Each structure stands twice: as structure tokens, then as C-alpha cells.
């Protein structure tokens, strides 16, 4: 297993390398001179020349790429134009917010998607199955942006049962230490236990709507995959064997069907992480969520090239790592696969 992990990690290197070339080329081949873009409408030729020099844009593209790559290999992802700080540090400061949101969205998508998929499979081809199908199509087709605003309007503005946006009530003035709100609530100095509990609960309440908005697409996909997988597994011979042995339906369902039906679902969950990171860009904007996604939006608006380039690369790295973890989990769930 260790050998397998090492091999997978090594295998990720050419992927990242190739991706860095594509990203670099993409960013440098889009029309427009970054220096002009940064300086704007009425910049003088001299200022543009200075900016080009500062950005290193006068070097040939391969030289620029090698410089960038050399930096990457030393853990230098470049600096943000906005504050001249290393991109990696800025990324890590915002990442916990995105992680918190993504995990919450995944819990929602998996926690609801799997039972819903099982429910649909149980009533396959009958009306509850049709209803779930319609719901999941809605989940896929409603833009996250629209869904987010609609959820806010219904649950925050009209019903007033959940907060509309941000990570925690600003009036609590929580000290951010780890940048995980749900952890920092317990670390806040000078709060009584009850106050910590209140802050934690407030943080969880703030997670609900963005998690639903972000989780809607994975939810729909996980529901569909679970349904299909359960139906397929339910027709397997070993399920008939389990029935012939006189096992209860509950046991057949939970052990014989689900243990197998999980496998494709687990793979899909890994792939959805990529979608979640992309969805976070929009969700964080709608919910005033100070995470990496919104940072990229701002960076694109500010033509903060190193931030855009490096963050996407880090996202790719995370995506590869998550899928490695998923594959390892898959191996544990499926004894037929043993990576040597």
C-alpha cells in the first residue's frame, strides 16, 4: 500500500507539471497586455513599460515559465500585487473558510444524497422515484447563484430562521486564530463555556444555507449514482443468496447492498470535490464568505495574475490528493482491489 501511495504521488508530478504549462500559457495567451490591464485606461507608455519590467513580461515566454517553475519548486507561488505578500501564505489564511464550507456541503450532499438515492431505488420506476429524479434535475440545473439568493430570501428574509450570509454574527467579534470558525469558537479567550457554545451554534447556523447551495449539485449527482448503484447491486446474485439465507431485509440492504453500492458513490464523491472547489467561487460571493473562492474572484478582477495562476494550481493539487485518498478508501472498501 505504501508503495502504491508513493507511486501515485510520483504520478501526480507530471500531471501538475503539465497543468502548470497549460495554466501559464492560458494566462499569457489571453488577449491583452497584463501591464495595460493593471494600469488601465489612461496610463502613460512609460508606466506601462515599467510595469512590464516589474512583471518580467519582457523576457521570452519560456524564460518566464522557467522562472515561475523554479519558484514553484522552491515553494514560491509568487506574490500578490495587492499586498506583495507570498501567495501561499495568503491562500492558507483563507483556505480554512473554504474547507469548512466544502466539508459542510459534502456532509449535506452525502448525508442527504445517499438516503435519497436508496429511497428512489426502493421505489424504482414508481412515483417517489420520479419525484427524486425531478428534484435532482432541479439541483443540477438551478445555478448556484440563483439557489443561494433564493435560499437567503426564504430562510433568512422571510422565515428568519437562519442567517443569510457570512461565517458568524459580526457582533460576536470572534477572534480568528485557526480561521476555522467552528474551532475558534472554542478557543476564544475570555468567553464562558455557554458563550462558546453559542458562538459554535451560530457558526453552524451560518454554514447551513451556503452548504445547501454549494452541495446541491453534488447532492443531485450522488443521489443519481446511489440510485443506479443500489438498483444494480440489488439484482446481483449474492443479494438473492442473502435472501435465500433468510436474512432480514434491513441486513440485506445495509450490508449486502450498501457495502457494494458504496463503491461507485465513493469514486463520485472524490470527483465532486473538484466541482465543490469551483462552486465555492460563486457560493462565497453570494454568502459573503471570506474563502479562497472569493479571493480568486477578487484576484481576477484585480488582474492579480500570480494569485490566479497559483491558486488554480493548488486547487489541482488538492483535487489530486483528495482523489488519491478516495482511491485508498476505495481499496479498503473493496477487498477485490489491493494496490500492490
Amino acid at each position, binding site marked *: 500500500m505504501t508503495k502504491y501511495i508513493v507511486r501515485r504521488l510520483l504520478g501526480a508530478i507530471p500531471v501538475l507539471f503539465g497543468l502548470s504549462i497549460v495554466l501559464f500559457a492560458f494566462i499569457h495567451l489571453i488577449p491583452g497586455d497584463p501591464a495595460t490591464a493593471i494600469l488601465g485606461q489612461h496610463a502613460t507608455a512609460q508606466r506601462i513599460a515599467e510595469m512590464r519590467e516589474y512583471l518580467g513580461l519582457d523576457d521570452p515566454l519560456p524564460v518566464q515559465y522557467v522562472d515561475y517553475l523554479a519558484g514553484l519548486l522552491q515553494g514560491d507561488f509568487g506574490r500578490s500585487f495587492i*499586498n506583495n505578500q507570498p501567495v501561499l501564505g495568503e491562500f492558507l489564511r483563507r483556505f480554512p473558510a473554504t474547507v469548512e464550507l466544502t466539508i459542510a456541503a459534502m456532509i449535506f450532499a452525502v448525508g442527504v444524497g445517499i438516503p435519497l438515492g436508496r429511497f428512489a431505488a426502493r421505489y424504482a420506476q414508481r412515483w417517489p422515484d420520479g419525484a427524486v429524479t425531478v428534484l435532482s434535475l432541479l439541483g443540477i440545473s438551478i445555478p448556484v447563484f440563483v439557489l443561494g439568493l433564493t435560499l437567503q430570501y426564504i430562510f*433568512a428574509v422571510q422565515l428568519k430562521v437562519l442567517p443569510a450570509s457570512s461565517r458568524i454574527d*459580526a457582533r460576536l467579534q470572534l477572534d480568528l486564530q485557526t480561521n476555522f470558525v467552528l474551532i475558534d469558537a472554542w478557543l476564544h479567550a475570555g468567553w464562558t463555556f455557554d458563550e462558546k457554545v453559542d458562538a459554535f451554534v451560530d457558526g453552524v447556523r451560518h454554514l447551513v444555507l451556503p452548504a445547501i447551495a454549494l452541495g446541491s449539485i453534488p447532492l443531485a449527482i450522488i443521489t443519481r449514482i446511489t440510485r443506479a448503484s443500489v438498483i444494480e447491486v440489488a439484482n446481483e446474485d449474492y443479494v438473492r443468496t442473502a435472501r435465500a439465507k433468510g436474512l432480514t431485509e434491513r441486513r440485506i440492504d445495509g450490508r449486502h447492498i450498501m457495502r457494494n453500492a458504496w463503491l461507485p458513490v465513493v469514486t463520485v464523491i472524490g470527483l465532486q470535490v473538484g466541482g465543490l472547489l469551483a462552486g465555492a467561487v460563486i457560493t462565497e460571493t453570494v454568502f459573503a464568505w471570506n474563502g479562497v473562492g472569493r479571493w480568486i474572484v477578487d484576484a481576477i478582477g484585480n488582474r492579480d495574475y500570480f494569485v490566479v495562476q497559483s491558486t488554480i494550481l493548488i486547487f489541482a493539487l488538492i483535487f489530486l490528493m483528495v482523489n488519491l485518498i478516495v482511491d485508498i478508501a476505495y481499496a479498503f472498501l473493496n477487498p477485490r482491489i489491493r494496490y500492490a
Partner: protein
Amino acid sequence: MRRTRFGVLLVAAGLLVGACTTGASPTPAATPAPTGAATPAPTTAPEETPKAGGTLIVALPGDISRTDSALIDDSNSSYVMNQVMEGLVGLKPGSASEVIPVLSESWTISEDALTYTFKLRTGVKFHDGTDFNADAVKFNYDRWLNIPDAYSKLEYTYYLDVALRPVVDSVTVNSPTEVAIKLTAPNSAFLTTQTLVPFFISSPAALELGKASDPDFANNTYAQGGAGAMTGTGPFKFKEWVPGDHVTLERNADYWDATHAAYLDGIVFRVFPDSTSTLNALQAGEIDFTQTLSPIDGKTVEGDATLQAIDRGGSCNLFNLSINQTHKPFDNLKIRQAVAYAVNKQSIIDTFYAGQAVVADNWMPPGFFSYKALNLPTYDPEKAKALIAESGVTDLSFDFWYPSDVARPYMPDPKGEFEAILRDLEAVGFKPNPKTATWRPDYLSAEAGGDYPLWLIGWTCDWAGPDNFLSTAFFGYRERSDNTFGPNEEFGYKNDAMWQAMDNALKTNSLDKAKEYWQQAQDFLAADMPSVPMLSSKPPAAAQLYVKGFVPNSTLTELFNTVWLADH
């Protein structure tokens, strides 16, 4: 302009809390403070007694960029720093153009208009407890004049570069309470520019503590929310900045002007990038005040009795149907006037701005220094047709351009607005040929080089002065690409008398004279119709009903020391 400069909004509006004033009057409705007072009393109805305490949660559309007021050029940073920092002069609350003393008590201008001598206020302390005095002023101006080159390369010094380093020659301490600022050339816009946040005075001790002039910006904590950050003299003190999330200010209990000390215990400025989401948070009661909403969301607030809509009356921008008169048929005055009569500005405001804009009657927004109503052509297709007939021009075809991939505060829907204008032009007999290009770099470089006969563009101000619109943005003579000095190639508008009037206005030491010259220039423009100014958009603000004492300002120079929270 990389980011939106401060002045997103403009013009005096007298609205105040409690009074749902719309239909802005050009002068503040109520400014009871005697002239010369640093800040006027809040305009609160007499029966309401302001109440101290509470924290105000304010939504901003974006984060501040840095915590050094000298190194910013965006409206979000400026909005926050206006609460913490103060300059020698400031804008009178509610006014876009009236300059009042703040950290100075008074000033004199030398006969040659080159030296401005400020008498400073005494007994003022910075938030770090050090004294404000003439040395502190000189320290700040000297720092700006000698700001590290690296900061300029990082594009942090826009305002220092355009409005200070070419303008100020030297600063002399005459006494602890008097400084003299010598300019490189006469400049009647100098005082106006000194009301901008980048020219507010920081504590020298804090600047040193925070390594504010370290050539490696990464070491500069003053500008990045660390040691020393944002240390001024204002009614609020900087407490915390969580980048991307919020800035927290707290009340300055030792404010030098005790009668105008803040009522609020503190302010939290939170970043809300999406307007509709901001509106939801406001309606859900999570925020107390939002600095900006989209026009359509502003309309929603107007219909919501549980919130107050705040109309700033105008804004610091102008949408311009631009003409280059070196292209036929626009060399003909009657044709340019015909275009002005052909377009229905109000219909465009209603369709694309949800009514949240004002029709332009000048090449700058209303409320500016020297602004006069020019009674420019209004929608009259018959008149347009008559002018075309009179002109004798028979070839009425020309290229008409719009940018394909951009939205600006003054131009939210370029394609839609283009099509509306196109229909208006065709209706009177013009044969425009629709053309489009991507904003950067094609469109901007072509229009700046004078390649387009007719096109859509606008201007968001750097500061609320006539010079910034009439000269900088539009018709001031300048270095041309062939190294001669002359008309802006963008518009190809040559009128030496008009330029002389502008130049005179900038060089006089008398405000009265300056006003006279600027108005002369405006008359030339009205007569020559070098482009068709369309409108100024006015992004609205909104607040909870219990937010009292707020004084709106179209320049977004809005001070929260007068704001208080009623019981709710």
C-alpha cells in the same frame, strides 16, 4: 483606472435620517454648524435625542486594500479611512465641493498662487497619543514626496503620482502650528485634492513603528494591518482588519473635537461582494447599513417600509456618448447637435438604471465647484431631423462602437444601451454602422487614439473637481503621440480659447476667478457640443430604520461620528 476610485457618487443631497427626502436639493438641507467648525452637528430632528452606544455593521462591496491611507486609490479603503484619518482640509458634510478646515484652522494663499500656508489646530493628538503639529504634517508630505519606488511599481501610489508629486514642491515648518506648502505651479484644484483620503495625516511615530517606508513592502506593517496601522486623529480608531472579511473600528474617546465625538462604540465594515445578497442580509437584520446597492436592489428598498433608502442625489461619474470630430460627418456642428437632440436620455435611465441616475446637463456631475446648468439639448427627434437638413450633409453613415465584454458603474449594460441609442439615431435618419471590440486592450487603445467616430465611454472621477472631468477626462490639451502639445486625440476637439479658460482656472489663486474661468470653459463646450454627456448614475445606499444621523454625500465622503442607533 484599475479599481473604482473613491468617487463613485456625487452631489449634495440633504437627506437625513428620519426624513425620507428624495429629489435632492443642490445644497444640504440642514447644516446647523457654524462655518469653520470642523464637522457639523448631525442633522437630527430636534425631538430626537441622539443616544450613545452600540456597534454599527456596515456592508461594503469590497475589501479595503491596505491600512495606509497614502497608499490607496479605491472607494472601499477611502470609505473606512474617512472615519479614522483626517486631513488639513475636508469636505463639508453633505457637500461635494465646499472645502472646510479640519486639522488646520485656516489657510492663506500667496499672491503668486504658489504657496499655501496653513495655521494648524492645537491640542490634537493621534490615536497613539503623540501630538499632531507642523512637524507631523511635514513628515507626512515629505514621505509622500519620497515614497519608495517599489510602492509606485506595485501601483499603490496613484494619488501621490497624479495629485501630489507633480504638484507639491516642498513643505516648510514655520512654527509648531504653521506649515507652508509650496507648489511647483499654480493649481486652484490643490485644496480640493487635499480633501482626499491619501492626503490625510498619519502619526509619524506610528509610520516609523510600522516601517511605512520600508522598500520591501512585505515588511511594512503599517499598511498591512499590523503594528501602527491606520493611526490618525479621527473620531474612530482602527482596531482590526481581517483581509477579505471585515475591518473593525472603535470609538476614539479622546477625540479632539469633543462636541463631535462619535456616538457609536464601534463600526464593523463587512465585505459583501454581491448586491442582492447584501439586500437579503439587510432585510434579515444582519447588517445595519449598506454603502452601495445595485439600482434594482435600491428600487426594492424604496418599496420596503422596514428599511430606509438613502439617495445621494448623484455620483462622481459621467456616461458620455463620445464623438471624435476629425471623423465625418462629426466635423459639422449641426450634426453633433442633431445627435444630442436624437438620444432619449431619460428613457435609457429608466430602462437600464432602474431610474437611479440623473440626466447630464454638463460634462461633469451636478454639485461640483463652478457647475452651471448648460441647458443642453434634450430629446427632440424633429429638431434633430431639422438640424440634419440644415447641415446639408448627405452622407449620414459612420461607425458606432461599443465595448463587448464589460460593465461599468456609469454603463451597466453597454450592448443594451448601445442598441437603444442606435435606434434613436436611426429614427432621425442617421445611418450608424454597429461595431464592437473587447474592452481591453482593443477598445480602449483605439478610442484613446481617436480611431472611433462615435462610441460609448465614461469617466469615474479621481476627485470631485471640474478639472478632473473637463480637463483630465475629456478636453484638456496634453502631450500628443507626435510629441506636440494640443487637443486630446481621443476627441479631436480643438478650441484654443476653451483651453485657455481651463488653464487660467487652474492657475489663479482666487476661487472666484477660478469659478469664472471654469464657467467660461463650460460655455464653450455647450456651444461646440464636442460630445453628448448622457447621465450620472447614483448607486443608492440603504439602512435600518433605527440608524439615525447619517449625512449622505455623493462623493462618498460620509462620516459616521454623527450616526447613532435608536432603540429597536
